[in-house]
């Protein structure tokens, strides 16, 4: 069934429909408001922000703040803007998302199609790991990264994100594959396909929707992470959020709010893009499995 399939059965009257549209529009205003504030203020000169109404439209429109946030703002001792950190984030997010998704897919595949004793308990253990508060893992994780010699490297950061991404990616794929006909796997076994051949040739080609859900989820979480990025990346290798935080959170300096907001929107662009581009598939993917609990 496609996500655009509508329930044909429900009939609504004119008044009800008007109410529904009004409600939906008001709700969308509620959701758009913070973004509006960010956007509007990123297009004002600083004096207009500190001086006047922060909700008003700019009197002087300027995109200076955007340029500053991207390439000239001071994020450390160097006025580099967010640009170099953007690539750091990409270098971290892409492998972390790929690895955690692949692991999640394999785990989900094993846990549904190659059942063995106590497999549900193992799954429960993995699922519960989603709920660990990240604050408590900081110190022991640092110790282990140090022992592995990957403290302060992107590799270490990827490892951390993979570890704490496994729970959710396994959950998504397990629920999706649970609804995937086991007979197909059996047929492929009889056809002589091995474990990985079945995965690659039979399971993966049918996993599109859930891959989208998992990738969106992991991408958002990893891209937006600050705690791990700040703790486990070295200075020049720090991800975008750490740089953004440095830009925004300076404690005893002048606060350039317009630059902050421009930077904030820049930092959010990739995730926004992912949501807007893949959003259609997102509901479809959720439908295909993950809401089945």
């Amino acid at each position, binding site marked *: 069934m496609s996500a655009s399939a509508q329930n044909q059965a429900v009939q609504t009257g004119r008044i009800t429909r008007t109410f529904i549209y009004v409600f939906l529009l008001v709700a969308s205003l509620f959701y758009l408001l913070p973004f509006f504030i960010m956007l509007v203020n990123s297009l004002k000169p600083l004096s207009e922000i500190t001086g006047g109404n922060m909700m008003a439209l700019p009197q002087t429109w300027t995109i200076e703040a955007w340029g500053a946030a991207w390439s000239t703002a001071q994020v450390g001792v160097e006025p580099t803007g967010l640009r170099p950190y953007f690539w750091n984030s990409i270098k971290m997010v892409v492998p972390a998302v790929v690895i955690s998704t692949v692991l999640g897919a394999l785990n989900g595949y094993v846990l549904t199609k190659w059942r063995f004793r106590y497999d549900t308990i193992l799954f429960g253990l993995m699922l519960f790991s989603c709920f660990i508060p990240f604050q408590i893992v900081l110190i022991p994780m640092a110790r282990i990264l140090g022992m592995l010699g990957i403290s302060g490297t992107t590799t270490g950061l990827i490892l951390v994100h993979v570890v704490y991404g496994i729970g959710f990616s396994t959950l998504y794929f397990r629920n999706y594959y649970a609804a995937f006909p086991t*007979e197909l796997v059996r*047929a492929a076994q009889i056809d002589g396909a091995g474990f990985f051949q079945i995965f690659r040739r039979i399971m993966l*080609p049918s996993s599109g929707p859930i891959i989208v859900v998992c990738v969106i989820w992991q991408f958002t979480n990893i891209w937006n992470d600050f705690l791990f990025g700040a703790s486990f990346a070295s200075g020049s290798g720090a991800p975008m959020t750490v740089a953004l935080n440095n830009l925004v959170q300076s404690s005893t300096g002048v606060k350039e709010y317009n630059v902050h907001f421009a930077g904030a929107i820049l930092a959010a662009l990739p995730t926004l893009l992912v949501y807007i581009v893949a959003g259609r598939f997102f509901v479809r993917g959720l439908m295909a499995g993950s809401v089945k609990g």
Partner: protein
Amino acid sequence: MGFLDINNVTKSYGNVEVLHRVDIAVEEGEFLVLVGPSGCGKSTLLNMIAGLEDITSGEIGINGRVVNGVHPSNRNIAMVFQSYALYPNMTVGQNITFGLEMHGVPKPERDKAMTDVAKLLQIEQLLDRKPGQLSGGQRQRVAMGRALVRDPDVFLFDEPLSNLDAKLRVDMRTEIKKLHEKLKTTIVYVTHDQIEAMTLSTRIAVMYQGYVQQLGTPKEIYDTPANLFVATFMGSPAMNIMPARVAVVEGRPHAVVQTSEGGEAQLPFSQDNMAAWDGKEILLGIRPEAITDPDGADRKSNNIVALQNRIVVTEPAGSDTFVTTTLGGKDVISRLRADVSVEPGQLFDFAVNMEKAVAFDPQTEARIEG
């Protein structure tokens, strides 16, 4: 020892034994149907033959080789699944040749095999489509094609027709039968539909509660069911079962049954050894077609008995008319010719073919051997 040998096989999940000591030897070219209600263990047995489930104890041999622990793909079998299990992301052609590809068969040979099979099943025009674009019947053919192309020792069918509508099911049934007669391969076929079992098989294994209740040709199963379960499960409408008492009258054992009018009818057995049950209660089984109108009675039978009884319900079915009456306190269905005119409430003279009657021990429910 057969071509497919199921030797003392059991299956347990944890402490629960779900399949008890199954012994079946299937000859080459035979069409064995495993039939039984859901949960009887027939699919489990099939999966064990395929290698999709472990064998708890006992042995399964295919073509002279014990296959316990052998990977499904190395057993030289092919399987058609209930849902067809067509790979949704591959075209029909790719579905058919996937197994050959996995076995390292070169592409030209694969293509040839595919063309041959497609021709045989008349699905040439479908080869480039995806399963999602096919009708139920077409999918069924593709699933069979996928099995055929492997040229296996044994074909396994897991309720292949149950997802089709009634008309298509009958067509495909015939088709499978034709295919078997043409190819002469060994087939093990699982179904819960006793008509499929009767029409397709060379032999039937009726299963219930993890036991093989009876293994035999369709005729054996139908005429001499091993026990009450087999008797009532096979045949439609089911065999009539009524309580009766054995009485030896004039040196010949009779079944004494209560009629609808309160009287007792004495029906002579064809089996002489029923005399040993003189005076005891039994369960008498008579199939609907053995209780009929006098003109419709089997002329070759030596033991047609007249019986007057009152008609409760009539159900004209076109080719026959089914009539419900009461014998031994039970509803009994009889099958009359369509042109006999009967009315509910009417007292009717039935002709009972006692040659086809069977008797069961009410304690063990086993058939009393005749």
